[in-house]
């Protein structure tokens, strides 16, 4: 799947929905015309009110490959226009307009020539596209070494908790900022430049780095990575804002 995948509008139907965390749902959409997507790409969801008013928001796709089952994990922003509807009202069987696959920049495409290690760094629900990359890595027999550093508030806020613990080809480090699990060796606390340096591949091995999270998280972490000697050209970021 190396050819460009053309983005267009599709109608999907909610095949399955389940609670992901206290504030998020996982939506599995059946999109019969979906051309497949690279790991890390996103789509736009468009809602249309009865008076014709439309609201569009971007969500990362948690699934990848040539499949018409598209998986999203949507965190609710209580003041948002779109996410509260997706989290609380959208039911199995409902239809949804989606535009994608979008984004050819924040994606991981397995390639024979590019074998440098891959470092994934997530803040909160920013883990979704990075989970897609780690899950895609599972299907490659022999490829780049993967690490995921995931900053999250509490154990109850972890997206894809079961799937992350089952990853066999990605080293996963979860840092809890507010409350750690009972037996955790590390007290809760935010990442620091020094702790990031301890978790991520050193700049000497020139990892490709993907950082996704809220804008302040991404700004801070990307700044530290450059201070730690990583080449800015090797760092790709995806920020998300607060319009939900």
């Amino acid at each position, binding site marked *: 799947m190396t050819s*460009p995948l053309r*983005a267009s509008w599709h109608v999907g139907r909610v095949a399955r929905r389940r609670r992901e965390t206290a504030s998020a749902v996982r939506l599995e959409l059946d999109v019969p015309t979906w051309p497949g997507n690279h790991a890390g790409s*996103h*789509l*736009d969801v468009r809602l249309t009110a009865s008076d014709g008013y439309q609201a*569009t928001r*971007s969500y990362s796709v948690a699934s990848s490959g040539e499949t018409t089952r598209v998986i999203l994990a949507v965190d609710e922003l209580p003041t948002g226009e779109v996410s509260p509807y997706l989290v609380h009202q959208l039911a199995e069987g409902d239809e949804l307009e989606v*535009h*994608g696959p*979008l*984004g*050819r*920049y*924040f994606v991981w495409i397995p390639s024979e020539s590019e074998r440098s290690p891959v470092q994934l760094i997530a803040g909160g629900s920013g883990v979704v596209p990075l989970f897609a990359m780690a899950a895609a890595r599972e299907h490659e027999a022999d490829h780049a070494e993967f690490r995921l550093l995931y900053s999250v508030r509490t154990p109850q806020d972890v997206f894809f908790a079961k799937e992350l613990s089952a990853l066999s080809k990605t080293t996963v480090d979860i840092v809890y900022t507010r409350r750690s699990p009972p037996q955790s060796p590390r007290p809760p606390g935010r990442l620091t430049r020094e702790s990031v340096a301890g978790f991520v591949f050193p700049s000497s091995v020139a990892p490709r780095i993907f950082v996704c999270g809220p*804008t*302040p998280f991404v700004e801070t972490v990307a700044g530290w990575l450059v201070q730690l000697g990583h080449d800015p050209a090797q760092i*790709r*970021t*995806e*920020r*998300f*804002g*607060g*319009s939900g």
Partner: protein
Amino acid sequence: MTHLDGNALAGLFADTLGIEITAAVGRCGSCHRNFELARAHAFVTAIGAVLRCAHCQDTLVVIVQKPHEVLVNLSGLAHLAMARP
């Protein structure tokens, strides 16, 4: 107002221009640096979006969505280079 990455405008570009150009390399018309548009700073509102150079903050692209037409201003870009389809 905090910004997003140019990557976030992929859908808007595809809808308004018919092509998805976030992976295209643009040259800032002001500071003349080259970078993927996905690395520029995107400011998104209900009526459209502004893309600014991450280095000099000058405006690269403005897209305004009006009820029956879309205005696209690319005058801040010196040029764009993209893979052939």
